[in-house]
């Protein structure tokens, strides 16, 4: 009991900032809501700074790092006071960690880069919670978004010879009623890739179609991931081709009770 209380007190003491990526803010607010509600359910005192926009990734990955400087500075301005910055995106967290050397490395910048966490990583490794008390009685396929997987190492990847683990998988496995399906290709890219989706339209679409088909072939009802960007791309194909699949961000499943 004492440990429980101490743990909770510690949680209350830490300042946690919620980073909602630009496209989630505008196009998938339900993912942001689910993330916030989930963290609150887990007794995290979480603050959403409303002056935030974007991590700068769209410009930087397109080769225009210089144009991302304003976004980077705005990000640091909004988040430098937090002990933890939590975001429902492996890709954006990775960008802050890996590519923010485009701006001078002040203490604030270093702090922000060190403190940013992808949501599943935060729940599992900072809060040390595995079972978030969710219920989701469906067949779910996990799309292991690349930047989280191979950038942040949120799980083992099929290329490397390391012990197997997956943060998203560990959390999902505790959700009551869920059936995690096995895919033929466990961690192949979906083909989103930011502006790649437009610059290399043909390949991007083909990769997405193959990823969707792998889920259909293995009986998935839902594709989930740590990144809504991958899911937006896959959903775009699923909707256009009227396929019997749904996409849900992992936060939406973990926040689910029915």
């Amino acid at each position, binding site marked *: 009991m004492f440990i429980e209380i101490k743990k909770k007190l510690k949680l209350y003491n830490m300042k946690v900032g919620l980073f*909602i990526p*630009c496209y*989630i*803010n*505008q*196009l*998938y*607010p*339900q993912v*942001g*809501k689910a993330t916030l509600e989930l963290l609150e359910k887990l007794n995290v005192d979480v603050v*959403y700074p*409303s*002056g935030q*926009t*974007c991590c700068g990734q*769209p*410009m930087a*990955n*397109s*080769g*225009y790092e*210089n*144009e*991302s*400087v*304003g*976004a980077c*500075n*705005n990000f640091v301005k909004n988040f430098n006071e937090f002990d933890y910055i939590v975001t429902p995106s492996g890709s954006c967290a990775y960008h802050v960690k890996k*590519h923010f050397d485009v701006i001078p490395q002040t203490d604030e910048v270093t702090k922000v880069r060190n403190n940013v966490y992808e949501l599943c990583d935060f729940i599992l490794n900072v809060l040390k919670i595995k079972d978030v008390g969710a219920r989701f009685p469906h067949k779910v396929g996990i799309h292991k978004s*690349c930047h989280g997987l*191979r*950038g942040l190492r949120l799980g083992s*990847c099929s*290329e*490397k*010879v390391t012990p197997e683990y997956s943060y998203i998988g560990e959390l999902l496995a505790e959700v009551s009623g869920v059936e995690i399906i096995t895919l033929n290709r466990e961690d*192949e*890219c979906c*083909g989103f*890739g*930011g502006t*790649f989706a*437009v*610059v*290399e*339209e*043909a*390949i991007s*679409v*083909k*990769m*997405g179609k193959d990823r969707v088909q792998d889920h259909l072939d293995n009986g998935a009802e839902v594709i989930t991931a740590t990144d809504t960007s991958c899911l*937006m791309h896959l*959903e*775009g*194909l699923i*909707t*256009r081709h009227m396929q019997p699949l749904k996409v849900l961000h992992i936060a939406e499943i973990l926040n689910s009770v029915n």
Partner: protein
Amino acid sequence: MNHSEAATIFNKNEKKVNWHDKALWFVRHKRDKSAHSVEGWEELRNLGQGIKAHTLSNLDNYLIQFEENALKNGVQVHWAQDGDEHNRIVHSILKEHNAKKVVKSKSMLTEECHLNPYLEADGIEIIDTDLGERIVQLAKETPSHIVLPAIHKTKEEVDELFQEHLGTKPCGGDPQYLTGEARKHLREKFVNADAAITGVNFAIADTGGFVVCTNEGNADMGAHLAPVHIACMGIEKIIPKQEHLGVFLRLLARSATGQHITTYSSHFKKPRKGTKMHIVIVDNGRTEQLSRPDFRASLQCIRCGACMNTCPIYRRSGGHSYDATIPGPIGSILSPGKDLTKHSSLPFASTLCGSCSDVCPVKIDIHTQLYKWRQIITKETKQPYVKVMSMKMMGDIFSKPTKFEKVGKVARWSLRNLPKGIINSKPNVWGKERDLPSGPVESFDEWYKNRK
């Protein structure tokens, strides 16, 4: 033609794309099984990377040591600054020996230097003896993969090609029959060759010897029959010691095809009695790449092709879409160093998924280098006006929170209210095959503010 245009053409035949993707995924899967059966695989990769990085930092010394030892062994050593000089050297050696018929085992370096057309222009017959290379040579094409040069061809296509060039009978693409015929054809070339050219997989500084890896034994067949052996190597093929082979031979075959070792790992050291052995050491842009701190690690490459097999873009666009001697992820970080404008689309032919870096046996940070080439390309080559302006606009919007909210509001309204026909009309490339999400009434930001 840039990569995207070539890839779009390749994707017109979805069946072939599926076949190409599956064929290469099969190789990648074999590699996984083979790598995962080695305890300490990651340690082996660390060693491979360490030895290569050390060698690159001491390249001058090791090359000189190699030359000294090779000379002691009775091998003649030549230095070529670029592809032209390489070709001239090879040509002059052949002329000196009055060699008219030449057999050549696989060498990406001689592809890079365009040796074949150079020699053919002087009436020299040069036959590629690796089966895959012979197939693309007959088809007057270039290799589409560095380990599997003819992976873009189906066995039925090879059947037709052999009928035309080797006079074989139609066989419905029977691999047994076709390889048997190729063997007969190549045996005749081996027996009559005046000289043999091979590549070099590893050149060992402290012995002056070198190793050529093949699965078909074609390097040996050539070098052991012909009176002259010319081995062509890039300066980065050096390793310091014989004992380092234990690291690289294990990494190479497993990464390339999933084999424990290549069928033939042939060690050459000195010429046989009455024969000549030459080594041509080539720079051709490598020292320039070595001078670029962000990109020098690309020279650690041992040409296993694993990054191609794993690359989801390569598998679905084919090697020829890269229009470069070395295609795929590793080619996309090597080629811009040679001709930035010609190869400016290659670093963008990636989602930066990072699979290439994790599969690489010598741990080249390929996807990080792709990102870095992008930053250089947008500065140093001409970019479409629309791209430059839209990046500027986005940069501006994302640095101003109020502007971001306003633009977001308009975008969401448009997605909600405009007819799909307009949203998905031509300028929106995304909409060609994908729907956009329907615009929500409230952004997260608005919802959060109203919540309290």
